[in-house]
Protein backbone atom coordinates (compact mmCIF):
# COMPACT_ATOMS: atom_id res chain seq x y z
CA UNK A 1 0.00 0.00 0.00
CA UNK A 2 2.42 2.66 -1.09
CA UNK A 3 -0.26 5.36 -1.24
CA UNK A 4 -0.96 4.99 2.46
CA UNK A 5 2.68 4.97 3.47
CA UNK A 6 3.19 8.23 1.64
CA UNK A 7 0.95 9.86 4.19
CA UNK A 8 3.41 9.12 7.03
CA UNK A 9 4.73 12.43 8.40
CA UNK A 10 2.52 14.52 6.19
CA UNK A 11 1.66 17.97 7.51
CA UNK A 12 -2.06 18.36 8.25
CA UNK A 13 -4.31 21.16 9.46
CA UNK A 14 -7.68 20.81 11.22
CA UNK A 15 -10.46 19.79 8.87
CA UNK A 16 -8.17 18.23 6.32
CA UNK A 17 -9.52 14.96 4.94
CA UNK A 18 -6.93 12.26 5.45
CA UNK A 19 -8.75 9.10 4.56
CA UNK A 20 -11.86 7.08 5.15
CA UNK A 21 -12.88 5.05 8.17
CA UNK A 22 -12.39 1.79 6.25
CA UNK A 23 -8.64 2.48 6.00
CA UNK A 24 -7.68 3.40 9.56
CA UNK A 25 -8.94 3.80 13.11
CA UNK A 26 -9.02 7.35 14.42
CA UNK A 27 -6.34 7.99 17.06
CA UNK A 28 -5.52 11.18 18.95
CA UNK A 29 -5.97 14.29 16.81
CA UNK A 30 -8.25 12.58 14.29
CA UNK A 31 -12.01 12.61 14.13
CA UNK A 32 -14.63 10.93 11.99
CA UNK A 33 -17.08 13.02 10.00
CA UNK A 34 -19.58 11.14 7.90
CA UNK A 35 -17.20 8.22 7.28
CA UNK A 36 -14.23 10.47 6.51
CA UNK A 37 -11.16 10.71 8.69
CA UNK A 38 -10.20 14.29 9.27
CA UNK A 39 -7.47 15.96 11.31
CA UNK A 40 -8.56 17.75 14.48
CA UNK A 41 -5.14 19.21 15.23
CA UNK A 42 -2.26 20.80 13.40
CA UNK A 43 0.75 18.55 13.14
CA UNK A 44 2.28 15.62 11.33
CA UNK A 45 0.50 12.39 10.52
CA UNK A 46 1.57 9.27 12.33
CA UNK A 47 0.47 5.93 10.92
CA UNK A 48 0.50 2.84 13.07
CA UNK A 49 0.23 0.11 10.47
CA UNK A 50 0.27 -2.68 13.05
CA UNK A 51 -2.87 -1.38 14.74
CA UNK A 52 -4.11 0.40 11.62
CA UNK A 53 -4.41 3.57 13.61
CA UNK A 54 -3.83 7.13 12.49
CA UNK A 55 -2.97 10.06 14.73
CA UNK A 56 -1.68 13.60 14.49
CA UNK A 57 1.65 14.23 16.14
CA UNK A 58 2.57 17.65 17.46
CA UNK A 59 6.27 18.39 18.02
CA UNK A 60 6.81 18.38 21.81
CA UNK A 61 8.95 21.47 21.58
CA UNK A 62 5.85 23.51 20.86
CA UNK A 63 4.12 25.06 23.83
CA UNK A 64 0.39 24.69 24.34
CA UNK A 65 -0.97 21.28 23.51
CA UNK A 66 -4.29 21.70 25.23
CA UNK A 67 -3.36 19.17 27.89
CA UNK A 68 -5.36 18.65 31.05
CA UNK A 69 -4.62 16.21 33.88
CA UNK A 70 -6.34 12.93 33.08
CA UNK A 71 -6.22 9.58 34.86
CA UNK A 72 -2.72 8.19 34.39
CA UNK A 73 -0.92 11.48 33.79
CA UNK A 74 2.09 12.37 35.88
CA UNK A 75 1.71 15.90 37.19
CA UNK A 76 3.84 18.36 39.11
CA UNK A 77 2.40 21.00 41.38
CA UNK A 78 2.63 22.94 44.57
CA UNK A 79 0.93 21.99 47.83
CA UNK A 80 -1.45 24.78 48.74
CA UNK A 81 -2.87 23.35 51.94
CA UNK A 82 -2.27 20.37 54.17
CA UNK A 83 -4.96 18.95 56.43
CA UNK A 84 -4.89 15.90 58.68
CA UNK A 85 -6.02 13.49 55.96
CA UNK A 86 -5.41 15.24 52.66
CA UNK A 87 -3.38 17.82 50.76
CA UNK A 88 -4.59 20.15 48.05
CA UNK A 89 -2.16 20.42 45.19
CA UNK A 90 -2.10 23.12 42.57
CA UNK A 91 -0.98 21.41 39.36
CA UNK A 92 1.20 23.40 36.97
CA UNK A 93 2.73 20.72 34.85
CA UNK A 94 1.29 17.72 33.05
CA UNK A 95 4.05 15.44 31.82
CA UNK A 96 6.70 17.70 30.27
CA UNK A 97 4.32 20.57 29.55
CA UNK A 98 3.58 23.65 31.61
CA UNK A 99 -0.10 24.47 31.87
CA UNK A 100 -1.46 27.87 30.88
CA UNK A 101 -3.25 28.14 34.22
CA UNK A 102 -3.48 25.54 36.91
CA UNK A 103 -5.68 22.66 37.97
CA UNK A 104 -6.38 21.59 41.52
CA UNK A 105 -5.79 18.04 42.68
CA UNK A 106 -6.44 16.23 45.92
CA UNK A 107 -3.98 13.87 47.56
CA UNK A 108 -5.65 11.71 50.19
CA UNK A 109 -3.77 9.95 53.00
CA UNK A 110 -4.83 6.58 51.59
CA UNK A 111 -2.87 7.29 48.39
CA UNK A 112 0.45 8.13 49.99
CA UNK A 113 1.67 4.53 49.88
CA UNK A 114 3.07 4.64 53.41
CA UNK A 115 1.45 4.21 56.82
CA UNK A 116 1.32 7.75 58.11
CA UNK A 117 -0.70 9.21 60.98
CA UNK A 118 -1.33 12.51 59.24
CA UNK A 119 -0.33 14.42 56.14
CA UNK A 120 2.03 16.89 57.84
CA UNK A 121 4.92 14.49 57.40
CA UNK A 122 4.00 13.89 53.75
CA UNK A 123 3.82 17.35 52.18
CA UNK A 124 3.45 20.83 53.57
CA UNK A 125 2.26 24.06 51.95
CA UNK A 126 4.81 25.31 49.44
CA UNK A 127 6.32 21.89 48.67
CA UNK A 128 6.61 20.88 45.05
CA UNK A 129 5.13 17.43 44.50
CA UNK A 130 5.16 14.96 41.64
CA UNK A 131 2.06 12.76 41.57
CA UNK A 132 -0.05 10.57 39.36
CA UNK A 133 -3.71 11.32 38.63
CA UNK A 134 -5.63 8.18 39.55
CA UNK A 135 -9.20 9.27 38.97
CA UNK A 136 -11.39 12.25 38.20
CA UNK A 137 -14.50 10.99 39.93
CA UNK A 138 -16.88 13.46 41.56
CA UNK A 139 -15.21 16.34 39.70
CA UNK A 140 -12.07 15.93 41.83
CA UNK A 141 -8.67 15.02 40.48
CA UNK A 142 -7.48 12.36 42.91
CA UNK A 143 -3.71 12.07 43.08
CA UNK A 144 -1.44 9.30 44.26
CA UNK A 145 2.22 9.34 45.30
CA UNK A 146 2.47 5.63 46.04
CA UNK A 147 5.61 5.08 43.97
CA UNK A 148 9.36 5.59 44.46
CA UNK A 149 9.49 8.22 41.78
CA UNK A 150 6.52 10.14 43.14
CA UNK A 151 6.38 12.44 46.12
CA UNK A 152 7.94 15.70 47.20
CA UNK A 153 10.70 16.90 44.86
CA UNK A 154 11.38 20.23 46.54
CA UNK A 155 10.48 21.07 50.14
CA UNK A 156 10.83 24.25 52.13
CA UNK A 157 11.49 24.68 55.83
CA UNK A 158 8.29 25.28 57.78
CA UNK A 159 10.24 27.47 60.24
CA UNK A 160 12.23 29.76 57.95
CA UNK A 161 11.28 28.95 54.36
CA UNK A 162 14.73 27.79 53.18
CA UNK A 163 15.01 24.96 50.67
CA UNK A 164 15.53 21.74 52.62
CA UNK A 165 18.45 19.39 51.96
CA UNK A 166 17.92 15.63 52.02
CA UNK A 167 20.22 13.67 54.31
CA UNK A 168 21.21 10.10 53.42
CA UNK A 169 18.75 8.85 56.07
CA UNK A 170 15.99 10.55 54.03
CA UNK A 171 15.32 13.17 56.67
CA UNK A 172 15.31 16.77 55.52
CA UNK A 173 17.50 19.31 57.19
CA UNK A 174 17.39 23.08 56.96
CA UNK A 175 20.85 24.56 56.50
CA UNK A 176 19.65 27.95 57.68
CA UNK A 177 17.93 27.16 60.98
CA UNK A 178 18.90 23.53 61.56
CA UNK A 179 15.38 22.15 61.91
CA UNK A 180 14.78 18.60 60.78
CA UNK A 181 11.60 17.67 58.92
CA UNK A 182 9.96 14.67 57.32
CA UNK A 183 8.29 14.33 53.93
CA UNK A 184 7.36 11.53 51.53
CA UNK A 185 10.27 12.08 49.14
CA UNK A 186 10.54 11.22 45.50
CA UNK A 187 13.71 9.34 44.55
CA UNK A 188 15.10 12.41 42.77
CA UNK A 189 14.45 14.87 45.60
CA UNK A 190 16.26 18.17 44.99
CA UNK A 191 17.43 17.13 41.50
CA UNK A 192 14.27 17.25 39.43
CA UNK A 193 14.09 19.68 36.56
CA UNK A 194 10.99 21.80 36.35
Amino acid at each position, binding site marked *: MPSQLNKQGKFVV*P*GEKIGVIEEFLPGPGIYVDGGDLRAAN*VGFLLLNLAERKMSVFR*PTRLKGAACTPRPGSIVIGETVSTQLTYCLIRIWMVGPRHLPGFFTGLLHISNVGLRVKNMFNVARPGDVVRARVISTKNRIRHLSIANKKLGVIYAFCSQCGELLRARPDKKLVCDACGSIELRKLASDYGRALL
Partner: protein
Amino acid sequence: MELKKPPLIDDEGRRLDGRGPAELRPLHIEVDVLANADGSAYVEQGNTKVLAAVYGPKEVHPRHLGLPDRAVLRCRYHMAPFSVKQRKSPAPSRREIELSKVIREALEPALFLQHYPRTAIDVFIEVLQADGGTRCASITAASLALADAGIPMRDLVAACAAGKINGVLVLDLCDIEDKHGEADVPLAMMPGLGRITLLQMDGMLTPTELKECIMLAIEGCKQIYAAQKEALRERFVRIRKEVEEAEGLEPAEGGGEA
Protein backbone atom coordinates in the same frame (compact mmCIF):
# COMPACT_ATOMS: atom_id res chain seq x y z
CA MET B 1 -29.30 68.06 3.99
CA GLU B 2 -27.92 64.84 2.68
CA LEU B 3 -24.20 64.15 2.71
CA LYS B 4 -22.77 63.60 -0.72
CA LYS B 5 -21.61 60.00 -1.11
CA PRO B 6 -18.13 59.62 -2.52
CA PRO B 7 -17.97 57.54 -5.71
CA LEU B 8 -16.84 54.12 -4.52
CA ILE B 9 -16.33 52.61 -7.96
CA ASP B 10 -14.85 54.42 -10.97
CA ASP B 11 -15.91 54.11 -14.59
CA GLU B 12 -13.56 51.20 -15.20
CA GLY B 13 -15.08 49.23 -12.33
CA ARG B 14 -12.09 49.77 -10.02
CA ARG B 15 -12.64 50.39 -6.32
CA LEU B 16 -11.06 53.17 -4.25
CA ASP B 17 -7.94 51.11 -3.54
CA GLY B 18 -7.71 49.89 -7.13
CA ARG B 19 -9.22 46.47 -6.54
CA GLY B 20 -11.67 44.70 -8.78
CA PRO B 21 -15.11 43.84 -7.34
CA ALA B 22 -14.28 40.23 -6.43
CA GLU B 23 -10.79 40.85 -5.14
CA LEU B 24 -9.55 40.50 -1.55
CA ARG B 25 -7.32 43.07 0.08
CA PRO B 26 -3.66 42.06 0.39
CA LEU B 27 -3.59 39.37 3.07
CA HIS B 28 -0.75 38.67 5.47
CA ILE B 29 -1.01 35.97 8.14
CA GLU B 30 1.46 34.93 10.81
CA VAL B 31 1.10 32.24 13.46
CA ASP B 32 2.75 32.06 16.88
CA VAL B 33 3.66 35.72 17.23
CA LEU B 34 3.38 35.88 21.02
CA ALA B 35 5.73 33.95 23.30
CA ASN B 36 3.52 33.95 26.40
CA ALA B 37 0.23 32.76 24.94
CA ASP B 38 -0.46 29.09 24.20
CA GLY B 39 -1.44 30.01 20.69
CA SER B 40 -1.46 33.26 18.77
CA ALA B 41 -1.94 34.64 15.31
CA TYR B 42 -1.67 37.96 13.52
CA VAL B 43 -3.79 38.84 10.51
CA GLU B 44 -3.41 41.83 8.24
CA GLN B 45 -6.12 42.38 5.68
CA GLY B 46 -5.34 45.62 3.89
CA ASN B 47 -5.19 48.23 6.63
CA THR B 48 -7.02 46.06 9.15
CA LYS B 49 -4.60 44.54 11.63
CA VAL B 50 -5.71 42.03 14.23
CA LEU B 51 -3.87 40.06 16.88
CA ALA B 52 -5.39 37.02 18.58
CA ALA B 53 -4.13 35.03 21.58
CA VAL B 54 -5.45 31.84 23.13
CA TYR B 55 -4.94 30.48 26.64
CA GLY B 56 -6.22 27.19 27.90
CA PRO B 57 -7.91 24.91 28.52
CA LYS B 58 -7.63 25.84 32.18
CA GLU B 59 -9.61 25.39 35.36
CA VAL B 60 -12.60 27.73 35.66
CA HIS B 61 -12.81 29.98 38.68
CA PRO B 62 -15.27 30.35 40.33
CA ARG B 63 -16.04 26.67 39.83
CA HIS B 64 -19.77 27.07 39.20
CA LEU B 65 -19.05 28.89 35.93
CA GLY B 66 -17.69 25.68 34.43
CA LEU B 67 -19.92 23.36 32.46
CA PRO B 68 -20.08 19.67 33.41
CA ASP B 69 -20.04 18.39 29.83
CA ARG B 70 -17.80 20.76 27.90
CA ALA B 71 -15.36 23.65 28.05
CA VAL B 72 -16.48 27.26 28.20
CA LEU B 73 -15.20 29.38 25.36
CA ARG B 74 -14.57 32.92 26.51
CA CYS B 75 -13.98 35.52 23.85
CA ARG B 76 -12.86 39.10 24.19
CA TYR B 77 -12.87 41.29 21.13
CA HIS B 78 -11.23 44.59 21.89
CA MET B 79 -10.21 47.58 19.84
CA ALA B 80 -7.03 49.32 20.86
CA PRO B 81 -7.45 53.04 21.63
CA PHE B 82 -5.21 53.80 18.65
CA SER B 83 -6.99 51.51 16.22
CA VAL B 84 -9.25 54.23 14.82
CA LYS B 85 -8.83 57.88 13.74
CA GLN B 86 -10.41 59.30 16.87
CA ARG B 87 -9.16 57.74 20.09
CA LYS B 88 -11.45 54.97 21.22
CA SER B 89 -12.06 54.58 24.91
CA PRO B 90 -10.36 51.37 26.01
CA ALA B 91 -13.42 50.34 28.01
CA PRO B 92 -15.44 47.61 26.29
CA SER B 93 -18.26 49.28 24.36
CA ARG B 94 -21.66 47.81 23.57
CA ARG B 95 -20.42 46.98 20.09
CA GLU B 96 -17.33 45.17 21.35
CA ILE B 97 -19.35 43.11 23.83
CA GLU B 98 -21.72 42.10 21.06
CA LEU B 99 -18.91 41.27 18.65
CA SER B 100 -17.24 39.15 21.34
CA LYS B 101 -20.42 37.09 21.51
CA VAL B 102 -20.79 36.93 17.73
CA ILE B 103 -17.19 35.78 17.31
CA ARG B 104 -17.55 33.22 20.08
CA GLU B 105 -20.61 31.77 18.38
CA ALA B 106 -18.82 31.70 15.05
CA LEU B 107 -15.93 29.71 16.56
CA GLU B 108 -17.84 27.36 18.86
CA PRO B 109 -19.17 25.00 16.14
CA ALA B 110 -15.62 24.37 14.99
CA LEU B 111 -14.28 23.27 18.38
CA PHE B 112 -14.46 19.94 20.20
CA LEU B 113 -15.35 21.61 23.48
CA GLN B 114 -16.73 18.38 24.91
CA HIS B 115 -13.16 17.03 25.17
CA TYR B 116 -12.46 19.41 28.04
CA PRO B 117 -15.32 19.42 30.57
CA ARG B 118 -15.21 21.94 33.42
CA THR B 119 -12.46 24.00 31.83
CA ALA B 120 -12.26 27.34 30.07
CA ILE B 121 -10.56 28.40 26.87
CA ASP B 122 -9.80 32.10 26.62
CA VAL B 123 -9.53 33.91 23.31
CA PHE B 124 -8.29 37.47 23.33
CA ILE B 125 -8.62 39.48 20.16
CA GLU B 126 -7.01 42.87 19.87
CA VAL B 127 -7.74 45.09 16.89
CA LEU B 128 -4.59 47.10 16.35
CA GLN B 129 -5.81 49.00 13.33
CA ALA B 130 -9.38 49.06 12.05
CA ASP B 131 -10.30 49.60 8.42
CA GLY B 132 -13.48 47.58 8.00
CA GLY B 133 -13.91 43.84 8.27
CA THR B 134 -12.47 43.58 11.77
CA ARG B 135 -14.92 40.91 12.88
CA CYS B 136 -13.97 38.75 9.92
CA ALA B 137 -10.25 39.28 10.43
CA SER B 138 -10.76 38.53 14.14
CA ILE B 139 -12.45 35.21 13.41
CA THR B 140 -9.70 34.28 10.93
CA ALA B 141 -7.02 35.14 13.49
CA ALA B 142 -8.79 33.52 16.45
CA SER B 143 -9.28 30.21 14.66
CA LEU B 144 -5.59 30.13 13.77
CA ALA B 145 -4.62 30.93 17.35
CA LEU B 146 -6.86 28.09 18.56
CA ALA B 147 -5.26 25.68 16.11
CA ASP B 148 -1.83 26.88 17.19
CA ALA B 149 -2.76 26.27 20.84
CA GLY B 150 -3.54 22.65 19.96
CA ILE B 151 -7.28 22.85 20.69
CA PRO B 152 -8.95 20.08 18.68
CA MET B 153 -11.10 21.53 15.90
CA ARG B 154 -13.40 20.23 13.19
CA ASP B 155 -11.96 22.74 10.75
CA LEU B 156 -10.32 26.14 10.61
CA VAL B 157 -12.80 29.00 10.44
CA ALA B 158 -12.24 31.58 7.74
CA ALA B 159 -14.30 34.73 7.51
CA CYS B 160 -14.84 37.34 4.86
CA ALA B 161 -17.43 39.99 4.05
CA ALA B 162 -19.18 40.75 0.80
CA GLY B 163 -21.49 43.66 0.09
CA LYS B 164 -22.93 46.13 -2.33
CA ILE B 165 -21.42 49.49 -3.18
CA ASN B 166 -22.74 51.86 -5.84
CA GLY B 167 -24.96 49.03 -7.03
CA VAL B 168 -22.11 46.55 -7.54
CA LEU B 169 -21.61 43.42 -5.47
CA VAL B 170 -18.09 43.39 -4.08
CA LEU B 171 -15.88 41.27 -1.84
CA ASP B 172 -14.05 42.28 1.36
CA LEU B 173 -15.30 45.80 2.08
CA CYS B 174 -13.01 48.37 3.63
CA ASP B 175 -14.19 51.01 6.07
CA ILE B 176 -15.32 53.66 3.55
CA GLU B 177 -17.12 51.10 1.41
CA ASP B 178 -18.82 49.73 4.50
CA LYS B 179 -19.97 53.20 5.65
CA HIS B 180 -21.12 54.55 2.29
CA GLY B 181 -22.12 51.33 0.59
CA GLU B 182 -25.59 49.87 0.45
CA ALA B 183 -25.04 46.56 2.19
CA ASP B 184 -22.49 44.46 4.06
CA VAL B 185 -22.68 40.68 4.54
CA PRO B 186 -20.03 39.22 6.87
CA LEU B 187 -19.75 35.46 6.61
CA ALA B 188 -17.65 32.91 8.47
CA MET B 189 -17.38 29.29 7.45
CA MET B 190 -15.49 26.05 7.79
CA PRO B 191 -14.39 25.74 4.17
CA GLY B 192 -13.15 22.16 4.49
CA LEU B 193 -16.57 21.00 5.64
CA GLY B 194 -18.60 23.57 3.72
CA ARG B 195 -20.50 24.75 6.78
CA ILE B 196 -21.33 28.37 7.54
CA THR B 197 -20.88 29.47 11.16
CA LEU B 198 -21.69 33.16 10.91
CA LEU B 199 -23.94 35.09 8.57
CA GLN B 200 -24.94 38.65 9.21
CA MET B 201 -26.31 41.40 7.02
CA ASP B 202 -26.44 45.14 7.31
CA GLY B 203 -28.28 47.23 4.70
CA MET B 204 -30.66 46.31 1.89
CA LEU B 205 -30.28 43.54 -0.68
CA THR B 206 -32.74 41.67 -2.84
CA PRO B 207 -32.91 37.90 -2.25
CA THR B 208 -30.94 37.22 -5.43
CA GLU B 209 -28.32 39.77 -4.49
CA LEU B 210 -28.01 38.22 -1.04
CA LYS B 211 -27.45 34.82 -2.61
CA GLU B 212 -24.78 36.24 -4.90
CA CYS B 213 -23.16 38.03 -1.95
CA ILE B 214 -23.01 34.78 -0.01
CA MET B 215 -21.43 32.97 -2.96
CA LEU B 216 -18.91 35.80 -3.30
CA ALA B 217 -18.07 35.71 0.42
CA ILE B 218 -17.65 31.92 0.27
CA GLU B 219 -15.12 32.34 -2.52
CA GLY B 220 -13.30 34.92 -0.38
CA CYS B 221 -13.32 32.56 2.62
CA LYS B 222 -11.75 29.83 0.50
CA GLN B 223 -8.90 32.11 -0.48
CA ILE B 224 -8.37 33.10 3.15
CA TYR B 225 -8.50 29.42 4.17
CA ALA B 226 -5.65 28.65 1.78
CA ALA B 227 -3.59 31.45 3.31
CA GLN B 228 -4.40 30.19 6.82
CA LYS B 229 -3.20 26.69 5.97
CA GLU B 230 -0.04 28.08 4.42
CA ALA B 231 0.73 30.15 7.55
CA LEU B 232 0.35 27.12 9.83
CA ARG B 233 2.38 24.94 7.50
CA GLU B 234 5.21 27.44 7.32
CA ARG B 235 5.56 27.52 11.07
CA PHE B 236 5.31 23.79 11.74
CA VAL B 237 7.65 22.82 8.97
CA ARG B 238 10.17 25.39 10.17
CA ILE B 239 10.03 23.99 13.72
CA ARG B 240 10.41 20.48 12.38
CA LYS B 241 13.47 21.46 10.39
CA GLU B 242 15.01 23.13 13.43
CA VAL B 243 14.43 20.02 15.53
CA GLU B 244 15.90 17.77 12.86
CA GLU B 245 18.95 19.98 12.47
CA ALA B 246 19.45 20.17 16.24
CA GLU B 247 19.33 16.40 16.50
CA GLY B 248 21.51 15.94 13.46
CA LEU B 249 18.87 13.92 11.66
CA GLU B 250 18.42 13.66 7.95
CA PRO B 251 15.25 15.49 7.01
CA ALA B 252 12.48 12.94 6.63
CA GLU B 253 11.63 12.12 3.07
CA GLY B 254 8.60 13.97 1.85
CA GLY B 255 8.44 15.48 5.35
CA GLY B 256 6.26 18.50 5.64
CA GLU B 257 5.03 18.39 2.10
CA ALA B 258 1.39 19.26 2.17
